[in-house]
């Protein structure tokens, strides 16, 4: 779908040099739905810019180090191996169960928490760019999600090694991991947008978001195996384990971790995620329509 902007006539001279960013904008009717959608679409058209910047962010972090971005994978591997051995011992699980579970959980969680925590400062950390360049807000969000996706891809290398060491019973149907990751990305965009807008106005929310995410890490089954507790012989524990499903993050983790480990999938996780996606985007479009133009005043 392409949204035509007013004033963006298809003159040949415009086609030559024009990218969405600097294209014609009619600054009237500041709070309209079209302007909100426009922001998302024009931001997307700037993919050369945010694509480049996302890469730059990663290379920047590992500049002058010999291994460079490979450090992302190494860090993940070391964490997963160390914690895998620790928790396998603590819970009395087999390492071949605990380690793959923990590794996939960590990879997915890193993506989710990256989108949420960095989403909370996506506009406040780009003050310079926002007050100097008339770019759509979504450019900064796309850059963030792209950067997180690149992190995720680096971590997938560790997952691939794990598949060799601890083979999982993967099936064709486990390709559902791809749309599942797509859903995570789509949700990452709205959550970064909405958190970015709200925290720009209310700065106190930033530490709150950080601590909520830290807490959520422990509440979400990443190191502890949720299904084991569900089938626990102790009925009280099994009953309490059901409460974990009230945690929305659980559903996001499950739709992707289950296919990655070749485990049977359950429809209810997908339904919850789809409902959150729709409701979240509706809310975000509303916020974007109302407060998009205010962000450059608030930063």
């Amino acid at each position: 779908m392409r949204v035509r902007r007013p004033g963006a006539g298809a003159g040949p001279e415009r086609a030559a040099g024009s990218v969405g960013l600097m294209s014609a904008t009619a600054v009237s009717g500041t709070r309209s739905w079209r302007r909100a959608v426009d922001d998302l679409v024009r931001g997307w058209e700037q993919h050369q810019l945010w694509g480049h910047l996302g890469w730059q962010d990663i290379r920047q972090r590992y500049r002058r180090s010999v291994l460079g971005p490979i450090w992302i994978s190494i860090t993940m591997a070391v964490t997963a191996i160390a914690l895998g051995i620790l928790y396998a011992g603590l819970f009395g699980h087999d390492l071949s169960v605990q380690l793959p579970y923990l590794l996939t959980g960590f990879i997915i969680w890193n993506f989710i928490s990256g989108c949420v925590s960095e989403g909370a400062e996506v506009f406040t950390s780009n003050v310079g760019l926002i007050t100097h360049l008339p770019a759509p807000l979504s450019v900064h969000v796309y850059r963030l999600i792209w950067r997180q996706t690149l992190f995720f891809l680096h971590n997938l290398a560790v997952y691939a090694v794990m598949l060799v060491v601890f083979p999982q019973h993967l099936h064709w149907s486990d390709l559902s991991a791809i749309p599942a990751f797509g859903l995570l990305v789509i949700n990452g965009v709205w959550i970064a947008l909405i958190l970015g807008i709200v925290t720009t106005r209310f700065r106190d929310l930033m530490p709150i978001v950080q601590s909520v995410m830290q807490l959520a890490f422990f509440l979400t089954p990443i190191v502890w195996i949720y299904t084991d507790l569900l089938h626990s012989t102790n009925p009280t524990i099994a009953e309490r384990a059901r409460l974990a499903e009230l945690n929305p993050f659980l559903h996001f983790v499950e739709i992707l971790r289950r296919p990655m480990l070749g485990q049977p999938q359950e429809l209810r996780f997908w339904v919850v995620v789809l409902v959150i996606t729709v409701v979240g985007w509706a809310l975000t479009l509303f916020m974007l329509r109302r407060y998009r133009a205010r962000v450059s005043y608030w930063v």
Partner: protein
Amino acid sequence: MNVSPDAPEVSIVTTDACVDFPIFDAKSRSLKKTLVGVVGGNIADGARVPIIEALRGINLKLETGARVGLVGHNGAGKSTLLRLLSGIYEPTRGIADIRGRVAPVFDLGVGMDPEISGMENIIIRGLFLGMTRKQMEQRVDDIAEFTELGDFLQMPLRTYSTGMRVRLALGVVTSIDPEILLLDEGIGAVDAAFLDKSKKRLSELVDRAGLLVFASHSDEFLRELCDTAIWMEHGQIRAQGELEEVLRAYKGMP
């Protein structure tokens, strides 16, 4: 809303546009009130959050070929006006209608990364200014020749002297084809020989641009690039017209 066919391709029209800044961290209002003076906009009373009325009642109509200089004291609203005209600040009240590709040059350094090479910075800065990667790659030679940086273009930007950075930034900025060019002073710190060269390039850039708004304290530069001027005071347009007339009024000469 559609573009009427006879409307000019590039234009900026504002009607009673106002820019109000909410100041969330200002606790003491009374202190703020005392600050209403010669410097800055007006701080409005009545609202719970103090508001600085940075711009008030801006009525402008600029069309293709306009070469407008912007004069006024510090804090008179020049930079805010440029940001309004670029679309960064959408007016809190009133209307601003901007048609055309905007190239805002407020800060030569924005978007420059000290850790990457000058060459890469050229590409990134170009992307920020609305060019594509291909277009910038075509211009790299031209920029290299103009900046006289030679092999230094392969070095990280942090190894550059201030003057070299300005050269690079000017080189990129003057290589683009903007429809609306918004310039905010800061074009100093270059050696004299280079300044002559950049002036030529700058006026070529201005010739290419459909519309120019240039904020500066230098009469010399203003005379070189502009033919009309706007005098900003306390966030409002004090006078607008022929460059020399406005300059005379601004300087308080008869």
